[in-house]
């Protein structure tokens, strides 16, 4: 085997993850190739440093309240969804009546009504555009499962 092929097995050799056949091939190569032997030594040292990186223990109190914190977040999420649905319905209902009353009011000049109509149409186009852009961005987002 050439060095490039052997190198792809060096990590497995170091971590004792190779079967006996490949282990023997790597061992034989290492006896004659200084370059691969040097790389193996470097890897051993890097692995030694990495394995020193232990995880600090969290106090027990943090684990005892762990579920409660998650539960509260879940519950709040549901609360917000229900609240938002109610608010959207009310706002839409109010907006509908406001606009309907405005457009049938004969005391308001036709020019003002056209201007307000233009503003509303423009606003709808802007909202649709933003929503579409967000939707497109979400579909192509690398980490779409993650909320920022």
């Amino acid at each position, binding site marked *: 085997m050439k060095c490039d092929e052997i190198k*792809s097995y060096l990590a497995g050799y170091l*971590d004792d993850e190779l079967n006996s056949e490949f282990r023997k091939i790597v061992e034989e190569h290492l006896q004659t190739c200084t370059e691969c032997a040097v790389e193996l030594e470097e890897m051993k040292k890097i692995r030694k440093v*990495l*394995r020193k*990186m232990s995880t*600090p223990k969290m106090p027990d109190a943090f684990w005892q309240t762990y579920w409660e914190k998650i539960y509260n977040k*879940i519950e709040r999420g549901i609360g917000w969804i229900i609240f938002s649905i109610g608010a959207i319905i009310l706002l839409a209902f109010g907006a509908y009546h406001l606009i309907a009353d405005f457009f049938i009011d004969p005391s308001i000049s036709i020019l003002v009504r056209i201007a307000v109509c233009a503003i509303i149409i423009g606003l709808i186009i802007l909202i649709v555009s933003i929503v579409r852009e967000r939707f497109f961005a979400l579909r192509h987002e690398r980490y779409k499962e*993650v909320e920022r």
Partner: protein
Amino acid sequence: MGYNERDRNIDLSDLSYAKDGDKEAFRRIVERYKKWAYEVAYSFIGDSMTAYDISQKAFVRVWKNLYKWDKKKGFRSWFYTILRNLCYNYERDTAHRGEQELIEAFYTAAESADKEILETEMIRQVWAALDKIPHEQREIVVLVDIRNMKYQEVADLLDIPIGTVMSRLYYARKKLADILRPFMEGEL
């Protein structure tokens, strides 16, 4: 945290109940995975409080996305993807300390000749070095070298061939050796 067929079946059962809105079943999943989630997040982030918060966010995320869960993929693999992505997002959104500042901190520690401080600084250098290698290589280092997982476990978790685990690990360690060489003259 070893993972066998029995664990997988318990996860599938609890998750099926949780998907139907059973919070007690979801709680059992949280209790089983909370420490593992924290440790994995810590291995990516290197800060205990942030890792703790991210692990909780990951569970909330799981709850919100239970309807998307694919039984075929299994829970652990899906949960790991969510957790890892939250860690990467956190990193992306957080300003890191400059490289120069880290180098200066290391030499200040070296001058003090205090072994403990020197080791702490070396670990900080390793975190900085981990930031510089590609994500797909970094996660293998995190799982194999920091979390002490076997290649087969990692391959199952990431749904990649075992040969890919081995080659990514080789390139990751090689890059880390190149980056850390100036700080590890005595060791490398």
